[in-house]
């Protein structure tokens, strides 16, 4: 907004239409949820940023402390997401379940003040559970508060705000440590206050149970047209009305479009090398300065932040499939660049730009695509189902990639991942082709 204002002629009070349009076009609920995520991410990234310092300088942990804290199971976290999504649909109150998730993350912060490794582990585990619980209902709320032709924009705004929080958290944490040397307890206390503020914003500004007339008219035909009515295959029959129980949730997989999305999310997840490995690869294969290693995630996050909204809007305009696939193509190019490793100082930047663009093109676009094929009353379940599939697939990829790295070295392991990604992306490109009945997916 500020930059846009500055570019307008002196005396002009109107912000450019494009910017105003964007802000106006995003519902207050999405902005409120974005604010909640921003604030919550400030809170959790504050803790993440100072944790190693705290462990080493504060608790005096020695080199073998790692691993112990990493023991929080990824699989459990994914299952929590499924539970959160399902519960939200079941009680028909996305805000309640999301609120419990945000609340858990806020409540666990005082545990950090205990100063023992066990309490720390418990706090981190609770934080993970909270994050798992809230993700699907929150994304469902976003999708439910934006019309179908503006889903990409809504998710883009949310992801940009979310990432902003992740970038601001460490800044705030180190500011506090600058004022109060060794004041890790102050960092944790402020983190708890910030998290509580996030819960307050959620309670005050995110509408609760939806009233009947709330959905914009445009979304109704979308939701109805979801199950493929033409093929007539028994597997495509609409899921039973009324109840949002477990059977209905898994019954979602009987609708073709969701099954395809689920399959693609899993396939692509299986070939998406985790961030941790990617930064290690960047470090090893581009010879980036040792001291810059901790800053690599900032590069990805900044690009993600800048591109989330433009690519979300692009997805609304030219179709989610194209943007989603282009994001994976970008990731493939990043793998290729790392394998080729040309001797240019621009290489690490290029890889990080592509990595950030990959997130911007896929992270919000996938739930937007899921939202378009899942009826309202199963929205959170559907988003959770695909999200869980993707998370578990990525976890498997991490295990496999680690094993491949151990057996063959980093180059061949990356080459295998790249080959896998190319095949999966091609397969998904075909599978996600618009069918005659559903038209071009938005």
């Amino acid at each position, binding site marked *: 907004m500020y930059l846009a204002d500055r570019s307008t002629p002196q005396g002009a009070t109107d912000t450019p239409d494009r910017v105003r349009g964007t802000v106006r076009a995003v519902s207050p609920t999405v902005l409120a949820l974005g604010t909640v995520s921003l604030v919550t991410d400030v809170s959790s990234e504050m803790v993440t940023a100072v944790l*190693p310092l705290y462990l080493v300088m504060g608790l005096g942990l020695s*080199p073998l402390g790692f691993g112990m804290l990493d023991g929080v199971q990824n699989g459990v976290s994914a299952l929590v997401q499924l539970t959160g999504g399902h519960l939200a649909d079941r009680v028909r109150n996305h805000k309640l379940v999301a609120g419990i998730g945000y609340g858990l993350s806020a409540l666990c912060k005082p545990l950090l003040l205990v100063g023992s490794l066990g309490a720390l582990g418990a706090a981190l585990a609770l934080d993970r559970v909270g994050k798992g619980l809230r993700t699907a209902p929150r994304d469902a709320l976003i999708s439910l508060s934006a019309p179908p032709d503006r889903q990409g924009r809504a998710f883009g705004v949310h992801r940009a705000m979310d990432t902003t929080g992740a970038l601001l958290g460490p800044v705030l944490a180190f500011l506090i440590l600058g004022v109060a040397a060794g004041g890790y307890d102050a960092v944790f206390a402020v983190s708890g206050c910030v998290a509580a503020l996030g819960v307050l914003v959620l309670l005050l500004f995110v509408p609760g149970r939806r009233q009947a007339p709330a959905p914009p008219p445009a979304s109704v035909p979308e939701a109805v047209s979801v199950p493929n009515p033409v093929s007539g295959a028994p597997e495509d029959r609409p899921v039973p009305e009324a109840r949002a129980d477990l059977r209905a949730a898994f019954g979602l997989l009987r609708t073709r479009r969701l099954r395809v999305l689920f399959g693609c999310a899993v396939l692509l997840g299986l070939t998406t090398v985790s961030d941790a490995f990617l930064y290690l690869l960047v470090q090893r294969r581009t010879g980036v300065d040792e001291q810059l290693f901790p800053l690599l995630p900032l590069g990805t996050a900044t690009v993600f932040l800048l591109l989330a909204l433009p690519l979300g809007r692009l997805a609304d305009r030219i179709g989610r499939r194209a943007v989603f696939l282009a994001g994976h193509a970008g990731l493939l190019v990043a793998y290729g660049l790392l394998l080729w490793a040309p001797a240019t100082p621009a290489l690490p930047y290029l890889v990080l730009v592509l990595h950030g663009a990959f997130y911007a093109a896929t992270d919000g676009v996938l739930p937007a695509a899921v939202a378009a094929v899942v009826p309202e009353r199963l929205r959170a379940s559907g988003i959770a189902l695909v999200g869980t599939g993707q998370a578990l697939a990525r976890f498997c990829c991490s295990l496999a990639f680690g094993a491949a790295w151990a057996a063959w070295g980093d180059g061949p392991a990356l080459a295998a991942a790249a080959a896998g990604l190319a095949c999966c992306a091609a397969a998904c490109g075909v599978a996600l082709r618009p069918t005659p009945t559903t038209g071009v997916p938005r």
Partner: protein
Amino acid sequence: MTLTPTRRLLILAVGVLLLGGVGAWSVLSAAGRAAEENRPRPGGPAFTAGKVDLGEPGRLVFRNTAAGPHRDRLVSVPADGRDGGPAGAVRTATDVSCLRFHSAAGTGVCLQAHTVLGRPAYQARVLDSGLRTLKTYPLAGIPSRARVSPSGRLAAWTVFVKGESYGTAFFSTRTAILDTRGWKLAANMEEFAITLDGRPYRNEDVNFWGVTFAGDDDTFYATLATGDETYLVRGSVARRAVTTLTRNVECPSLSPDGTRVAYKKRVMGRTALWREHVLDVRTLESTPLAERRSVDDQAVWLDDGTLAYALPADSRAGSDDVWTVPADGSGAPEVLLEDGQAPPAPARAG
């Protein structure tokens, strides 16, 4: 849910004020406590500004951890009983700050913190005997261990590396070995060839820490961790290779005569409890030392019969005391000096 927008904003404002108040109070009280801890303690060591020479025989040079303006500074005290001895002497303080320090034969390595873009960053300084910086190397993480070879030619350091990604944090170590002759840096020891239990081994979870050098400026010992095990390895800098010798050895420290390794041995599974032992590198037999408290340090040999190591000071937060114990398992631990990290052996005369 029948709140008017004005009421909502009002509640939000009250919430922001309350939470902001709690946050501000916690930051201010932490800042006050930090200032309190920075005040010199009554009865603590006295300081005088002066020159410190790493090559001067009979002086111990170490990182001072006493509260006050000289915290983290390199200081020196007499190694023997003169002028009140290591514990009582007035400390000669320099303006060089280090988080980890080691020296031998007039070469020092100082791992220190500074600030880049508002975030803490770390660097290794190689110092000459007058503590002038010869070379600076950026570090990828928080300093953990530093070592210089007996001749002063090789140096090694270990840092903690944090890789972060969305919601996950993993920790590992990075160990570098520097040859000051020609300034050749092996920035990541994990690229060294590993022979584990007699076979070539490779795994991306490999971590090294706690290098200690032999007198030939090639052989070294270190800790290797992979899976849930830690190993003592012997390696060659020239051949860029290591071989495992035995298990459950962390932070080895080679004796001046090169025959024994002092190390911390983890007791009771994966708890953070260690007992300091000395291992004969030929027979691989271990002797527990008389120190019964958990030692989390890479000990130093003051001579062929005495080890020094730091333990957290009971009553002074953030400070360490240095203790000594005979290296043969006899005797009892004694305080060498308060408020400091374990000093490397003093330079020898001649």
